[in-house]
Each structure stands twice: as structure tokens, then as C-alpha cells.
């Protein structure tokens, strides 16, 4: 419903500022402000409507991201808007699908880069560039004026529709925080989910497997006598032996440090070797135990490796002497298991 039959005079925003200051528009680099916005200033002639070759448009929109740099704009034909000069907000954002915490900083970093380096090759297959927003002309060639609102409906040809409806045809590079869905939902789309398993419709997968399927089997591992724990990725190992070696590597440094600090013992080079050599069979100084998904302490090594990976929740390297006395240390905050 066209609403602007009448051409009303545009309000002078400057007059509305109470203290009457003339606000000087500045063509600041990267500031992307509009000058005399909507006051009928002339359009930026540089914004012409051009169609780019199919390849460039694989990200859908104008590769005006490129147009951060005026020079580039000539080389990379960009689909720009004639009468819909959206402000050059700085939307050069990196793709991010990693959830809320990363997003903000990524935005900032990307934007700074683009401002500072001034070279964006949006269409050129650089997957980082932000698609849609980049219709927005760059700061440097900022639009000094916009079509007055009333004349927007005039030239339909110049409008957006020339943008191929590629929205159905290419993956949109994600803008930070867009579309506005919670981070839980991002994971749904990519299959790895915080709430669901990876195959939504796979009814063949065994339930047990699904239950146990975690995105990353990083489990905590503590060693008696060492106050600081580590985390280990069970998925990175394929056997108990490798795990045992890995455990040794994790705590090796700590043990050495402790030995250095205790001036009394002589540093025995093979000491840590000895400690870790018999983790699995109970005959060494330390034994590896784990806590399973039902909360019980179990000896490592009894079940097949893949079952172990899916049920182990935490690991512990205990002194074997503790084991034999049946005094398995209980973590202070833990309540009764059942």
C-alpha cells in the first residue's frame, strides 16, 4: 500500500536538537555515518546497479563488503542498491557458529580488520565475509545522501529485486547473532547438539549409544598428591595402553616439579616411568580408576575400550596402597551415591 502520495517536507532534524548545535557530519573513515540523512541530498552516483557473475554471488548479496575499498569496487562488480542505501554499518563479521560467547569478540575483530586493512574480497570466495549486509556501501565511499523517503517507490527497477533470489541457492554466511536464535538451536542445525544426539531421525542407532554420545568426551583426571587436575579427551585414544601413556604425559611435569621442590629425595630419572608403568594392572605404585555414568568407582581395563569411553565420566590416578586398604578418597562435596 503505497503510503506516500503526498510529499511532505522533511523535518529538519538539526532544528530539533535543543541546544541548536550544528552537528557537523564528518566523513570519518569507518564511521559510516550519514550526512544530512534524508534531507534530499544527492545520491551517491557511484552506487550503480550491477550484476555480478554467478560465482561472486554465491553468498547471495551484494559483495559490497568488498566495497570497503573503492578500488576494489571497480574490479569486483558488486550488486549495489540504488535507492536503498543502507548505512554502512560495520558488519564484516566472521562466520561463527560456536555459540554466544565467541560471537561478540569475533565481530569486533573482524570489523577492525576490515577497517584497518581495507581489503575485503567478499565475493571472491573468502568465506569469512558477511553476505547480506555488505550491500551496505563501505565507509569510504559513503553515501552522503539518501533518496528522500518519498521517492523511494519511484524506480522499481533500481530496487533490490535484481538481487537474484539466491536465498534459496547458496548457504548464507552467518552474521553474528543472526538469525536471532539461541545457541542451543545452532547446534541442532549442525547436528551436534547440546540437547540432542547427532542423528535426529536415526532410529536404528541403539539407544544406549545415543545416550552415551557426548559431543566431546573430555573427562577430568586427578592424581593423588597433585592438587591440580587435568582434562583428557578419551576420544583421542584408541586403547588402554595409549591412555596410560597419555596419563603419564599429563602428570609427568607435575611430578618432576614436585620432586624438584622436595630437596630431600634424589632425583631419579626413571622415577616417573616407574610410577606410570603399571597403572593398569594394579601392581605399580599407582592405579587408574574411573567413575562411570552411574557414579560408581571402577577399575580401568575391565570393559571393552569403546564401552569404557562412553561410560567413563572421570578418571583418577590413585595410590595403589589406598586401593588395597579400600580407602578410596571421596571428593569432599560429593553426597551419597544412591
Amino acid at each position, binding site marked *: *500500500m*503505497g*503510503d506516500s502520495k503526498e510529499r511532505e517536507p522533511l*523535518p529538519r*532534524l538539526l532544528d*530539533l536538537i535543543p541546544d541548536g548545535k550544528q*552537528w557537523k557530519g564528518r566523513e*570519518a573513515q569507518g*564511521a*559510516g*555515518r*550519514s550526512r544530512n*540523512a*534524508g534531507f534530499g541530498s544527492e545520491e551517491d552516483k557511484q552506487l550503480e546497479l550491477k550484476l555480478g557473475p554467478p560465482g561472486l554471488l554465491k553468498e*547471495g*548479496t551484494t559483495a559490497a563488503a568488498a566495497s570497503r575499498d573503492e578500488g576494489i569496487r571497480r574490479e569486483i562488480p558488486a550488486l549495489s542498491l540504488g535507492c*536503498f*542505501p*543502507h*548505512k554502512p554499518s560495520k558488519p564484516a563479521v566472521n562466520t561463527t*557458529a560456536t555459540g554466544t*560467547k565467541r*560471537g*561478540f*569478540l569475533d565481530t*569486533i575483530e573482524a*570489523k*577492525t580488520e576490515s577497517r584497518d586493512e581495507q581489503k575485503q574480497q567478499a565475493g571472491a570466495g573468502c568465506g569469512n565475509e558477511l553476505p*547480506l*549486509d555488505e550491500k551496505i556501501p563501505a565507509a569510504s565511499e559513503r553515501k552522503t545522501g539518501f533518496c528522500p523517503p518519498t521517492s*523511494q517507490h519511484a524506480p522499481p527497477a533500481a*530496487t*533490490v529485486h535484481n538481487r537474484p*533470489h539466491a*536465498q534459496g*541457492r547458496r*548457504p*548464507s554466511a*552467518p552474521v*553474528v*547473532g543472526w*538469525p536471532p*536464535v*539461541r545457541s542451543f*538451536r545452532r547446534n541442532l*542445525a549442525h547436528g551436534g547438539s*547440546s540437547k*540432542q*544426539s547427532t542423528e*535426529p531421525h536415526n*532410529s536404528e542407532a541403539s539407544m544406549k549409544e*545415543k*545416550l552415551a554420545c557426548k559431543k566431546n568426551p573430555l573427562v577430568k583426571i586427578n592424581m593423588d598428591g597433585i592438587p591440580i587436575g587435568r582434562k583428557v579427551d578419551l576420544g583421542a585414544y584408541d586403547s588402554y595402553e595409549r591412555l596410560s601413556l597419555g596419563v603419564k604425559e599429563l602428570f609427568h611435569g607435575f611430578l618432576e616439579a614436585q620432586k624438584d621442590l622436595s630437596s630431600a629425595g634424589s632425583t631419579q630419572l626413571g622415577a616417573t616411568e616407574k610410577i606410570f608403568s603399571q597403572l593398569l594392572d594394579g601392581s605399580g605404585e599407582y592405579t587408574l580408576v574411573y567413575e562411570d555414568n552411574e557414579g560408581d568407582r571402577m577399575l580401568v581395563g575391565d570393559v571393552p575400550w569403546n564401552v569404557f569411553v562412553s561410560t567413563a*565420566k*572421570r578418571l583418577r590416578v590413585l595410590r595403589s596402597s589406598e586401593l588395597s586398604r579400600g580407602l578410596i578418597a571421596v571428593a569432599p*562435596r*560429593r*553426597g*551419597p*551415591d544412591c
Partner: protein
Amino acid sequence: MGRGGSRAAPAAAAPPWHVLPDEVWEHAFSFLPADSDRGAAAAACRSWLRAERRSRRRLAVANCYAASPQDAVDRFPAVRAVEVKGKPHFADFGLVPPAWGAAAAPWVAAAADGWPLVEEISFKRMVVTDDCLEMIAASFRNFQVLRLVSCEGFSTAGLAAIAAGCRNLRELDLQENEIEDCSIHWLSLFPESFTSLVTLNFSCLEGDVNITVLERLVTRCRNLKTLKLNNAIPLDKLANLLRKAPQIVELGTGRFSADYHPDLFSKLEAAFAGCKSLRRLSGAWDAVPEYLPAFYCVCEGLTSLNLSYATVRGPELIKFISRCKNLQLLWVMDLIEDHGLAVVASSCNKLQELRVFPSAPFDAAEQVSLTERGLVDVSASCPMLESVLYFCRRMTNEALITIAKNRPNFTCFRLCIIEPHTPDYTTHQPLDAGFSAIVESCKGLRRLSVSGLLTDSVFKSIGAHADRLEMLSIAFAGNSDLGLHYILSGCKSLKKLEIRDCPFGDKPLLANAAKLETMRSLWMSTCSLTLGACRQLARKMPRLSVEVMNDPRRGCPLDSLTDESPVETLYVYRTIAGPRSDTPACVQIV
């Protein structure tokens, strides 16, 4: 007393109404349900102020930085239930820097000190630590309700403290929080003597729970009405739980999948058949279509169905929903598609709220046939529909105009067309006309989110017509400062305005500075603001807190940055507490 003259002093009579004792006013005010009414009463005169504030039991602090915790405690000494909200809404989508603030600790500390009788605490979008939870457990002897929505910073250790320490806990409601799993068996810490639970929602918890412990808890809490499980509960255990709690009113199934076994199916079906009071159902993540018919016996009674994380699709899904004839609330994924929504339109005539979420928000390949048609159908056939959140990929002005005509009773209309700047796909015009129709027709509209290709003229309509609008979300829209000016100079009831990626600059902000004090908050990110304008705004409006968030590398000191420097994000809110002191490096209060 005696004035002499012609007027005789009146004979001793009842005291004039305005000197009635406070208790009378407190009793009168207890009938005012809305905080805003109580606030208005308190503004009438000193004695009403005194009576109202001393009898206020429920306090909702919509912006944790609008007042200090001590202000709140001092002013309302008798509060029993407090709700505090922290980060701005766009924090949900990653636009707020990680360490921005909104710590719950000062509120918990102030409450522990000044409101020892507090029974209910709700936090939304705040950073709640395990220490906070431990303090809650230790400080309030009659603590009953803990609700945490979109919070982070705590772990199962904190939950353990709550379970162990809150003897009278009725509700533990954890919605969409980020909870670190410390493998603490927090559920086991509810004592055997503990039976008061009415609501237990741990659906957002990622770790495993001890199912035996859960079963025992559910069995002994005979008043349990709401149970929302996480994804650690297999289907057969779900059936067991339901048999132990047939009185349940609201159920979150967690996952709902298993290989199809007729025995398991029958077990489930029987379990649901026993739940005669079940009214609200959610979960069904990974739902396997073959198991959906197990729900059939409860469909008739369901008023609320949240399948927004359920990736099930196809005829079984549609058949299931179509049997829920009394649905008032339906949240579903776009996998339902237009034809599914057409069925919803014809079956669920009592629908009041519809939300359709995108199953593949980042993948533009159109696998899902959900368009404007679905929304048009539902709006045409569901006369009580008043709240909509709809993600789709295409829209037309005509559809929006039709929707506006069909449903002038919308109070909340949020349309998200996934690709920014998408025009009407048939006419290639901006969607100004459509959204204008919405605001002109829906006079009671309180919340609006716009999307698609939009010019300044839609904002003119919104500013002029949306008199009751309280919250407006704008993204990738408008083409000049005028757009923002229309909004800020119109929209009489506007409380929250959030804007991203729009070409709005300094002028409308400064020209409408006074408006900002009538609002709760304004968020503008990736617009065309400069630091100088923000500084000027802060100078002009001392009761606003003007926060600027920029590239951390340029964060401090802001003094060295010039007025021309662009501002990435601006967050402005009114406050009586002055500038906060807990900003991270990349946030500056100018």
C-alpha cells in the same frame, strides 16, 4: 483549631479518610495486582508511599543496573519474592561481550542481609555463581522457589547446595541455562525426608542424572506438578517416572527416542494414559515418529505443546498435533511446514500463541516448505491468536495485510525473515506496507519485531500508530536517521528498543534524548553512531547510563579516542544507581 468567625468547628466525627492507618492502606493495596498500579499508588502521597512500600511482597527489577540492590532492600523491606533481569536481550544471540556484567552476587548478598524472609528468587540473563547458590541455600530459612532463566556461571555443585540446604523448596526451575557439569550427584542431596517439590525442571542440564535417585524423589514428592527432564532419561525410564507421578500437569520428556519396540510403546502408552492431569507437554527431542501415538490419550487435554526442539517431521507429527484440539500454546519447528500449519489452523481453534522456529537457520537451501501461507492460515482460523513468533524465508505485503485484517487482537508479533533485506517476493517491494498494516490494525500490540526489506516509512507508521508498543526489535532496516527519529518521537509506550545493523546515526539519538529516560533501555549495535554523540548524550542526561562497547583493543582509555570514532555498540538505560563499577575492559560508561 478554633478559627473563630462564622464557621463553627464540626462536631467530633470519624477521622478524615486520608488519615486512616497504614494497615488499612496496605490491605487495600494488596488488591492491586500490577506493580505499576502499586507504583502509581505510592506516588500519590507520602502516607500511601509508606504504606505501599512497606507492604510490597513481590518485586521485579527489570534491569539489574537500574537501581542498586541496597536501594531495593531499603525501599521495600518486606519483599518475599524478587525477580531480577540482567543482560540485554541481544545477549541471547551473542552480541554482548562475555564478561559484560549482570552478576547476581550483589543481589543475593543484599537479599541475604535485608530480606531474610525471601521465599522466591528469579534471575534472568545473569551470572549466577555456585557461591550465590550456596548463599541462597544458607540464608533464607523458608526459601521455596528458585528460577534461573538463561543464566550462566554455576555448576551442579551449586545445585547440590540448593538441594541439600533448602528444606522447603517447592520449585527448582532451570530454563536454558549454561550449567557446568561437575559430576556432582546433586539430585541425591535432596534428603529422604524432603517431599515438598512441586516443580522440577532440569531440562537444560547436560550431564547424566542418577535415575534411581530421581525415581525415589518423584515418588516421595506427591505434590509434584511439573517435571522437565533432560536428555539423560531413556524412554523406558520415562514411562516408570510417569507411573510414579500420574498427577503431573506439566511434563518435559527430554529425549523421546528409542528403537521401536511394541512393548516399550505399550508401556509408554499406558503410562500416559494414567496421566489424566497432563496439560503441558514439551521436549520430544529426537522424537521418533513411531512413538508419537503414545501421546494420543493426552492430546485432548493438552493446552500447551512445546516441540520447538523436536526434529520430528511428517504425517505423524501433524496427526499428533491435530488431535490436540484444546491447544492454547504451540511452539514447533518449521518442519511442520505450511500444510502442517494448515492442519493446525483447522484443528486448534483455541490457539493463542504460536511460535515457529527455524530448523536450519544457517543453511539457506530451502528444504523446508514453510512460507507466509502457514501464518496466514493460522491467523485466519484461530480467532484467539494473539502472540506470534515466526521464522520464515519469504513474505509478502499482501500476506501481512491479510494477517493484520484477520487478527487485530495481536499483542505480540515477531516476524523474522531469515535473510536480511528480503523484500516482498512477488512485488519486490519493501515490506513497509505489510508491517504498517499490522500496527494500524493491532491497536493492542505490545511487542513487535520487524524484518525483511524495510525503509524509513514503516517506522513512520510504527511511530504514529503503535501506541501501546512496549518493545520493538529492528534489524537490517531503515535507510536514514529519519527511521529512528520516527520511532523515538512516536511510540508513546515504548520501553525497550533494540536495533542492530541499521543506518541510524547520532542526530535522532540526540534529538530524542529525553525520550530515553521514559524507556527502560535502548540497544544499538552496528549502526552509525559516533563516540562524540554518546558523550554528548551522557552529558545531557545524567540519569541515563550510556555504555559503549567497542573493539577491546581500543577499549580503554576511551579518552584517547576522538569524538568521530565510531561506536560499535551502544546500550543506554535509565538508572538511579549511577554508573556501575563492574564493567569489563571493552565496555565503557561515557
